[in-house]
Every structure is written in C-alpha cells, then in structure tokens.
C-alpha cells in the first residue's frame, strides 16, 4: 500500500497484489472451465403410445415400383423363374399361370394389367411381422376396374412381395382407411367384433359360392358380380353336362393361412383371402371332357383329353366384413379367378 505524501485528504489506495491475482484467477477459471460446452445427453426415448407407420410413402412407392418392374420384365420375357423374388402366395401362382398361358397364346391377357399409379395406399403400423401394404391402383388404360394389391413382408430379413391382386367390382364401395402418414393397423384372421371373423367370413363365402342360393349362409353374403357370374357359368355347364349325361362339380375351399386383413376406420375389416376351387367335369356317354375356356385350352395344351377333366382354380377374394351390430352383409368387393392346373384324369 503506497501513500503519497502530498495527498493528506485522499488516501491513494492501490489494489493489493493478492487481490488482483484472486480476481483475475476467478474469471480465468470461469472462462477456461467450459471450452467445448457441456456434453449433450441422449434424450431418453419417449415411448409414444401411438404407433407410427412402418414406412414412408416414398418408401412404399419405391417398393411397389420395384415389384411392378420385375413383373413387367417377367411378362415381357415370359420367364417365371424371377417372379419368386418379388411375388408370393396366390399372386405368384396366378402370375405364373398367366405367363404360361401367354407362352401359348402369345400375349398376356389384358386382365393381367396392373397400373403403376395408385389412388389409395394403406400402410401398416405393426412393429412385428408379417406386414402387409394394401394399395389400390387407378383404373387401367383401357378402362378396366381398379386393382387391389396386397404386398406382404413375411419377416424382417425378407423383402416385400406382391402376395395378392384382386380386380375390384364395378361400383364396389371400399371402407375408409387412415392416411399413409398415420398408418392403419393390420388385423388378424381371428378378429372379433365383426359379424363374422375373417376366417369364418371366407368360409361362408366359399360355401355360398359352392352352393349358391341353397347355402345356409346365403343371407349373410351380399350379392355380387362374381357370384352371379359363377352361377351363370355353372348353370350353363350343368345344362350342357345334363344334355350329355355328364356331371360337374365345383368345390370351393379356402386356402389355409392365406389371408390378409386390414382394419378400417369404421370398425370393419377388409379381408383378402385365397379360395381354392376344383372343378371336376365328367362327360358322360364316353365323350371327352374338353377345356371350358381359352385359358383352360392354353393350359391344357396338346394333351389328350379324357372323359374327366379336373381344373384347379385359384380365386382371390377381397371382401368387406362389417362390424357386429351393423345391419350390413359381408360384401365381396373384388375377385380374381385363374386356372392354374388342368388335368385329364
């Protein structure tokens, strides 16, 4: 502390050295302690109860585009060995059959078209597998009806494959689903709260297909064009058979575990299932049983016809199962029917 001799009234007071150092060191510590800042913490995962879609719309479009590109390539090359990469279930069998028919006839049936654009995409929110995407395409270029595509991923380590395609009936009303940004929940084959579980609904429909109006479930199923067409077809064939003293029989059997269910926002389910049918035609009086349509002809090829012919069809049915308590009937909204095997027994 220094004191000037000539300043009696005011003391000259210089800051002691220690205090200066203390002040400076304090501020220095504050400055040097945090050079990079505090290390950020990973925010604790907020487990949200709302499920998120399994993929984005862009991802879904990319997947669908890859599938359709592969199918198109196989169509053009009329090769079926690559189909298994991106197709499975009834769609694979149907497409294989169609390509085989095209080998004979030269062109694929126009009903095999699948447009690339969609009018609605239903993306699942399931965390587990299998997962299914329901995509509804636009109408085809030649004004055919829309297609309902079911694209399924069976496990985490497999890719999405086209499992089923159904051509929608004219005027069919589809239930409502949430937008792809929200996603929809998939259903199971044993969903409750409906007029019938999906498995039962398919069984009832198969019974109605087989027995027509005489089926005990005829009241549960709404009338649709497939049933009408099938009834007409069956009637024609039956008349023809009767004239020749022949018999015919169609047996519809739902395929086991070949079913995809998506829950709609109104409580009902959209069910897509495979129904196998075997059509046995026996010509009477020693006649030959011939293929009934062009497809059968193409499939049958050059083989020798016998009196009995058995044709295996694969039917893909898309139906809406309404919720319990509503006064609606199980309604088929789309179908696909393709012979896949023909045998002359």
């Amino acid at each position, binding site marked *: 502390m220094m004191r000037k001799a000539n300043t009696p009234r005011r003391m000259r007071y210089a800051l002691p050295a220690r205090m200066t150092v203390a002040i400076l060191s304090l501020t220095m510590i504050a*400055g040097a302690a945090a050079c990079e800042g505090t290390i950020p913490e990973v925010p604790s995962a907020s487990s949200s109860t709302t499920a998120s879609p399994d993929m984005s719309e862009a991802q879904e479009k990319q997947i669908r585009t890859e599938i359709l590109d592969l199918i198109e390539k196989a169509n053009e090359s009329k090769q079926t060995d690559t189909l298994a990469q991106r197709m499975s279930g009834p769609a694979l069998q149907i497409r294989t059959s169609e390509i085989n028919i095209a080998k004979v006839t030269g062109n694929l049936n126009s009903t095999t078209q699948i447009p690339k654009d969609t009018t609605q995409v239903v993306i699942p929110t399931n*965390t587990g597998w299998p997962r299914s995407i329901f995509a509804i395409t636009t109408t085809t270029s030649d004004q055919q009806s829309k297609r309902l595509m079911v694209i399924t*991923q069976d496990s985490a380590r497999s890719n999405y494959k086209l499992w089923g395609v159904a051509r929608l009936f004219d005027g069919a009303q589809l239930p409502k689903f949430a937008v792809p940004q929200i996603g929809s929940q998939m259903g199971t084959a044993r969903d409750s709260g409906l007029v019938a579980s999906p498995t039962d609904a398919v069984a009832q429909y198969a019974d109605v297909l087989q027995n027509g109006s005489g089926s005990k479930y005829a009241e549960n199923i709404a009338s649709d064009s497939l049933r009408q067409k099938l009834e007409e077809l069956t009637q024609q064939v039956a008349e023809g058979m009767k004239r020749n003293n022949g018999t015919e029989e169609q047996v519809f059997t739902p395929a086991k575990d070949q079913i995809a269910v998506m829950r709609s926002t109104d409580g009902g389910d959209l069910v897509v299932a495979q129904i196998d049918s075997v059509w046995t035609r026996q010509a009477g009086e020693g006649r030959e049983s011939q293929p009934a349509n062009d497809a059968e002809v193409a499939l049958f090829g050059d083989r020798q016809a016998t009196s009995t012919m058995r044709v295996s069809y694969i039917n893909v049915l898309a139906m809406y199962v309404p919720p319990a308590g509503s006064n609606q009937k199980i309604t088929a909204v789309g179908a696909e029917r393709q012979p896949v095997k023909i045998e002359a027994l």
Partner: protein
Amino acid sequence: MRRHVRRAVVMRGIVAPIFGLIAVACVVFGALNAVVWKPSRDISARAQVSGAQYVTTDPGVLSLVDSSVRVTVESDASQADGKTTVCVALGSGKDVAGWVAGHAHERITGLSDWRTLSTQPAAAQGEDSSSDDDVAFKDSDLWTAVQCGEQSVTLRAADLKSGNDTVALIDGGNDQASLTVTMHWVRQNPPDFATPLYFLGGLFAVLAVLCASVFAMEPQRRRKQTAEDSTGETGQEQQEVALGEAVAGSLSGVTKGIAGIGSLVNPKSRHTRHRHAGPGSANHHAGADAQDAAPVIIDPSRRNMLASQSAAQGDAAVAQDALDTPSIRRQESSAGQGGAQVEEAVETSVISRQELQDYFARLAQELPPDKEETTPEGESTASAEESPSEESLSEHISEGAAAAVSEITPDAGGERQSESDSATRPGAAETDADGDAVISDVRSDTVQAQEDQAGEAGEADDATGNDDGPKADGEGDSQ
C-alpha cells in the same frame, strides 16, 4: 476522519477500482473465449467395438450434436475371416430391432466425452428370423439409406430432427472383426461464451463509473444541510437528553438519510425536509453534524426554571406541565440548533427586574399566612437580586428572598445554564413561550425548596393555569 470523506475514499479508492478491474478482466476473457478458447465446430468421436457383428445406435445418438452426421466404420478383419464387407444402414428403430432379433449386438449409447462414444453390449432379443432365402443386407427394403464397402464405409445422414427415430445399423460382416466406429458432426451453433462475458464486463464498467461518481457523492449532499449543528459545547448537552428525545432524534436522522438519497432526484426536497425535521431532531443533528453546524447562540432566557426545578424535585405534574409547553424551546436551547432559528423569533424578551418585583409583590400578598412564614422570601423579592453569582443568590434566598432571580444577562445565564446542566436536570434550560419570567436555575440542594417556591411564584403568569399551582405548590408541595 469524517464519515463522508471516508465514504468517498472507500468508494473511489477501493470499490471503483475493483469493479473496473473486474470489468477489464471480463472483457479480456470474453475476447479470449471468442478467439483462442473458441469451442470447436468439428466434433469427432469414436468407439472401438469387437466381438459383435452388428452395432446399433440408440435413438437420438445420430442427432446428438448436430442434425447432420457422418458415420465411418472401419474393420480390421482380414480376408481369412470371411466376409469383409462392412455395411452401414439407416432405418427406423423397430426395423433395426427386427433385423438384429436373435443376435447379440453392441449399442452406441451416446458421448462419454467429446472424443469418445460410449457403447454398451445388448443381449439377443426375440427370435432369429434369418434363413437361407434372406435378402442381403444391402438389398433389404427396411433401410432408408445403406452403404457398403470393403474394410471401411462412410455414410452421411442429414436433416435428422431431434426426436427422429432414425438409427444406424452397422453390419461388420462377421463377429470376429474389430470395428472402429467414428461419428463426425459439424456444429452449426457452437456455444458462445464470449457474449456473456462481454455483457458482464459492461455491467461492471457501469458499476465502476457509478461507484466513482454517484455513490461517492452522498456525503456532499449532507454538506448542504441547514447549519444548525451544535458546537462542541452543546455536544455535552447531548448526553443529558432524554431517551425519548434520543429515539426521536435517531428516527429523524434515518428519515433524513432517506431524504438525502431522495434529494438526488429532487434537490429541493433537501431544504424542506430539514425544516420539518428540525424540531424533532435537534439532538440527532447536534450529535451527527456537530462538526458542520455553525455555532448557535444559546439564550438562557429560554430556560424554564420552574420545569427544571419541578422535575428535579420529582414533581411530575408541575414538571410535566412545564415541560409540555415549552418543549420546543427546551429542545432548542439544549441542542441549540435546528429550528431554533425559527424559534428565536418567537423568543421572549428579557423580563425586566421591575416586572419581576411587581409580580413577587403580588404573590406575597396572595400567599396564605402559613406559607408566608416558610417563604419569607415574599418580601425579599422586592429586593430584586442582582448578584449574578450563585453564591450571592443563595445567600439572598437563605435570608428569605422570595425570588431567586438572577440578573439576566446572556453571559451569566449561560454560565448558570451550564452549571445547571451539570446537575443532570432534564429540561434544564427552558423558555416560557408566553414570555414569562425565566429564572435561571441554582443548583444548590439546600436552596432548592426555596427556589422552587420562588420559581413557582415566578411562574404565576403561566397561561396554562399554574396560577394556583405555583402558589399552592410552592408552599407545601415543592420538593
């Protein structure tokens, strides 16, 4: 040293320099933090993982430091170990969990420090769904982005929002290899430590300026007080003030201090404040500002001998009456300041001897006979005592002088007043507001009784109705 000077010295000499130094230090360290100690923009953290084929990041790790990250994976696997292809993919948490189900893997959980990623092993969960017809890692539909390479691979992820579910999955090819995972971020908003320090520096600079100028200035305001501070003489009187006066004086001092601060804003308030505070704060002023006040003239004629004598005798009623009325005068004369100047104008003139004699003559006539015996001074009042000395006066009274009246001169009054004060008589110097005879006190126990009587007689003109009181009390009750 005087308090105000000391305050200025402390403020200017100690506090202001301290604040100034702190301000300079803050600015210096702010500049250092902006240049040398600037937080780096590039953050690169790595982790070494071995014994697991799959490495996943926890949700939120990719966007931990910034919304864009570059993930680099290097494998030290040799060709002999089998697959050496290293792949990195981005996907949602549930997709990645589905892919590694049934496999034990390592989790990258965050940053342990700015250069190291923290990892944690995770046990196998769920069932292993791998089969022969599995799709290759690179071809899976699950990933939003995927990169593969031999021995090392780099993947960039951008636009990761915090809360995004995107996680990274690293496939090392086989579980024999040791993987080095590096995550590199470029911070767009590194922390800024300079600005708060600059702000602090400015704040302390302002404080330093304030301390050097304004806070050190307060004593100056006091210098402008009305100069009624008592001199050293009245300082002695301070010790004899009553407790009530002392408390009142302190309170007024506090309010005066607050008024002093307020006067910073409104200089005029100073003077008005002083005027109002004068009467009630005479004592405090004398004690606090004794040095600053100009000398004050004490007028012994202001003293109320009746009150002082009564109080000394323990006569509460009389003393209280005497005290109440001339209370203002008493305080003023004892402290001799404050509004005393105002009161001076109201001061009574000196009672002439003639008037006093006349009064005592009347008093003697009115006194009852028995009292007359005890107060032979009734006649002797006529012989107006002129001796200024205490001894002569007491002699006169001992001879039966009715009135112990001293020739009232300022000097004599002052002497007597001081003597009377030394006898610790509260309210020793009093002045009668009505201009009655002010009788100086005589501090002699032997003559007190007689003096009281005389004093009481002298107070006959008191307007408060002590006419009867002094007479009656003077004879019998004055003690």
